[in-house]
């Protein structure tokens, strides 16, 4: 019991305080998951918030650990939370200034699958965004080289979407060796 009380008395993470002070309009939701602060950001302000998180000297989330996405199309409880946005682009950040890890989620609607690229902030976002494009079909505006990275160039579809069949659409059986440039 004493431990539980201790948790409740913990001060609010600095990142939440600063986001509420500076980007309150962009903050759709905030949460905590196994010790990691989770914030959901409006897409229109996503780049500005991420830039703030990186450049603010106290926060300094200088390390972009991962960029990925989640397809919530078959998860009604998740969908209705954020105005039926099918995809959630997820950025995992890490700060060496003592703030630790932070997860930034950005809802993306299916009818507007574009989101600003963060390659200008973190060089490492390049391949991560390519992978997210390849697997989910999310377009990263301003990306220097948005091509498929895992699937063959002539592949059709985005296989980590929930409506893509697990065994594919026959790509592994029909094979055109002449078409592929090796």
């Amino acid at each position: 019991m004493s431990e539980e009380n201790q948790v409740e008395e913990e001060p609010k993470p600095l990142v939440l305080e600063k986001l509420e002070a500076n980007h309150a309009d962009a903050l759709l939701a905030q949460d905590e998951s196994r010790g990691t602060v989770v914030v959901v950001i409006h897409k229109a302000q996503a780049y500005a918030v991420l830039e703030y998180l990186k450049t603010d000297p106290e926060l300094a989330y200088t390390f972009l650990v991962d960029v990925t996405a989640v397809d919530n199309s078959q998860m009604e409880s998740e969908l209705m939370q954020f105005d039926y946005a099918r995809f959630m682009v997820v950025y995992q950040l890490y700060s060496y200034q003592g703030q630790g890890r932070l997860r930034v989620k950005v809802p993306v609607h299916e009818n507007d699958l574009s989101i600003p690229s963060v390659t200008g902030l973190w060089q490492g976002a390049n391949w991560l965004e390519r992978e997210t494009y390849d697997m989910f079909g999310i377009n990263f505006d301003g990306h220097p080289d948005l091509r498929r990275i895992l699937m063959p160039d002539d592949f059709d579809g985005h296989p980590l979407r929930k409506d893509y069949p697990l065994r594919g659409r026959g790509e592994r059986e029909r094979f055109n060796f002449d078409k592929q440039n090796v």
Partner: protein
Amino acid sequence: MGLDFVGQGAAETDGNIITTTIDKVVNWGRKNSLWPMPFGTACCAIEMMATLASKFDLSRFGSEAIRFSPRQSDLLIVSGRISIKMMPVLKRIYDQMPDPKWVISMGACASCGGVFDTYTLIQGVDQFIPVDVYIPGCPPRPEDLIDAVLQVQQKITSGASPKGVESVYE
């Protein structure tokens, strides 16, 4: 091996004359110096490395001369998962190997896709290249790979054509 000693009885020729055929001598050479081209894409390749290392020592069977150039090899060991992006590479490497050539499909993934029944994985490389010997296992033990090499050697000794070649012994 197909060698017959003749001239038994006469002291000066006893055991000194051997009759055979060109094919059998050539096959004897091929059999004892298979040069493998490793196509290791997954954990089976680790077992392949163990097979080549000192404990199992594939050189006992004359197949230790691993070549990473397909043009110098006559035994393709496909060890691991082959994705649809990798299959054209594998096909090209197979095509680049000079005849006669043999193929070992090592492990469950190469032979049938294994547990990876997904959109991106070839469900058995034999759909696209001819396979002479399959090895079951996930991954197979080094002894299994040695056994497969010995089976290839047996095929060569028997004079059978490799799966991918119409006939090399005309």
